[in-house]
């Protein structure tokens, strides 16, 4: 039946050929490893940062400044004894940490962390998957994070785990609505779901059309936060609630339910829950920078200008690396943007840690009230305000 079987592997997303497929697969593995290694770094930031905020020293014995502490912890986790509680559902007990980790990794796939690099004719997108419905894909996969929590709580065979899991689940789903609604104002401004389009819209100076007259403020970057400040506040708050971080971490609150849905987990499975949580935090911070702070682009300086800069100043590197000037410029532009992205996301990650150790925890009913009775109405107000202003002033 198959006269000649040609295996054709994808077009521009995965590369039309085995070499490009391999390059893209390697990129995926590298990004995943980078995320997995950022998690210990983040935990280190948390432990040292919280220590300094609480006027004590954090881990500072293992390695320089205590940086290898987390590696030691991870290795320790591997050597712990595997135990399964009596009433646990064995299959689900093992699957739950994986179910928690999977959405956390998949959400990061749509985030562009740098501009595309062109080397030797191959263009590599600095984004795992350039989906044209980017932001709503991220929300859809993030809503699957509930399964990890529910399965963990149920399969532990402990009724307090189950209560913790149900409360965590209710909290997460309540804040998903507010998060989606707060985004609508932003989407109206960007007119696209694709995160690359959003970053492209945020290049240059702040400008808008008011009744047909074009106004521009040259020295203010065209960042999302200046167009939708209320949306920003709502989104950050919902981001905290979605990732079960303080001050919303009652479902896993240490003083209340011991560990909530992960009470009965030890060893590496416990670690995987935390990798999932920090993965969600990383994606959340990356989303905040992409939606409201210009993503990987520098403020007021477009990627073309950066590329031109590197063409002028990058000649010294072309020789040793045996690449053309254009390639070197592209590479250095990508690295510059990666650094910018890292700085912005890193700031928001630090902000997460900062808030955790500053604010006290909310009570559960206060938490649910905040989600349904405060954030949801304010998101609606934001949406109505944005739509009405645009309607009456024909802003664009």
């Amino acid at each position: 039946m198959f006269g000649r079987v040609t295996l054709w592997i994808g077009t521009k997303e995965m590369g039309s050929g085995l070499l490009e497929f391999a390059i893209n697969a390697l990129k995926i593995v590298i990004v995943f490893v980078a995320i997995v290694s950022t998690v210990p770094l983040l935990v280190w930031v948390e432990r040292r940062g919280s220590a300094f905020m609480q006027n004590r020293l954090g881990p500072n014995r293992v390695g320089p400044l205590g940086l290898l502490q987390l590696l030691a912890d991870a290795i320790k986790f591997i050597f712990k004894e595997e135990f399964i509680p009596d009433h646990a559902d064995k299959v689900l007990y093992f699957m739950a940490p994986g179910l928690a980790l999977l959405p956390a990794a998949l959400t990061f796939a749509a985030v562009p962390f740098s501009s595309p690099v062109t080397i030797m004719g191959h263009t590599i997108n600095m984004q795992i998957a350039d989906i044209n419905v980017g932001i709503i894909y991220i929300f859809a996969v993030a809503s699957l994070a509930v399964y990890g929590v529910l399965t963990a709580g149920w399969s532990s065979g402990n009724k307090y785990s189950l209560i913790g899991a149900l409360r965590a689940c209710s909290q997460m789903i309540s804040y998903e609505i507010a998060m989606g609604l707060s985004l609508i104002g932003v989407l109206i401004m960007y007119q696209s779901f694709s995160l690359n389009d959003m970053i492209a819209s945020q290049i240059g100076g702040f400008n808008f059309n008011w009744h047909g007259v074009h106004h521009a403020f040259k020295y203010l970057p065209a960042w999302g936060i200046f167009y939708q400040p209320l949306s920003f506040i709502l989104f950050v708050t919902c981001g905290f609630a979605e990732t079960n971080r303080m001050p919303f971490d009652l479902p896993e609150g240490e003083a209340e339910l011991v560990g909530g849905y992960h009470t009965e987990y030890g060893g590496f499975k416990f670690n995987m829950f935390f990798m999932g949580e920090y993965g969600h935090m990383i994606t959340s911070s990356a989303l905040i920078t992409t939606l409201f702070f210009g993503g990987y682009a520098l403020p007021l300086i477009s990627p073309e200008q950066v590329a031109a800069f590197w063409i002028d100043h990058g000649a010294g590197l072309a020789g040793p690396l045996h690449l053309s000037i254009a390639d070197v410029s592209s590479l250095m532009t990508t690295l510059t943007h990666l650094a910018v992205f890292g700085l912005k996301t890193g700031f928001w990650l630090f902000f997460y840690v900062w808030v955790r150790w500053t604010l006290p925890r909310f009570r559960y009913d206060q938490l649910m009230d905040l989600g349904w009775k405060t954030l949801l109405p304010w998101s609606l107000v934001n949406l109505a305000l944005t739509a009405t202003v645009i309607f009456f002033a024909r802003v664009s």
Partner: protein
Amino acid sequence: MAFLTSEDILFHFFAAAIVVSALLVVFVSNPIYSALFLALTMSILSIFFFMLHAPFVAVAQLTVYAGAVMVLFIMVVMLFDLKREHEEVVKFSPVMIAKVTSAALLCGFLIGVGWLGVNATQVNAATVLAPQVEAKDLDKSHGIPVMGPVNPDEDLTAAEEANFVDSKDQVKKEAALEKVEIKLPPDEFGSTASLSKKLFSKYVFAFEAVSLLLLVAIVGSVALAKSKGGTHHVSR
């Protein structure tokens, strides 16, 4: 010549996966596993929507079905702590009659659909392929029209090349270059913007009707919970 694209491989893999998953929903006895397999089925369905150039529907399916409805199902199963199904003694009862009747109806339905489907494809294939197949090929192929050369190691003769009609017509032209450029639909096909264009012009009444339906559902669910004493106002 047929080309096996990665899309075909993925489609068949996910088709098998979704069928297995859906069957497991029915055949496992633990209700939590059943609900989780249903959630998996919904998630794989979203991948199918993606493959059909409907990315927005895919995301909506994932968000609403896999992310909301199935979560509700699983929460209900956990809250009410449903036990495994017990083996039922096969006894003659109204329930038994109902089960047998519905199973028989399902079988009849599937057979009917399959019969119609097979007849339809046979008709199409015969009308499309018959003019292009020459008499000598019919002899070799025992009267069954085939697409392309009967002997797969042979290439098409010039006459067959000219008459070769395939669903991907450009394939025969570019096959000589060993490079297959599968033409995709234009970007606007299935994009959310074109969905919106239709939704807010032609189907606007359906859209408003949906909002009314949601309102009815909201009021109904609150009323239902109140009647069972769910809201604190009543249960205090």
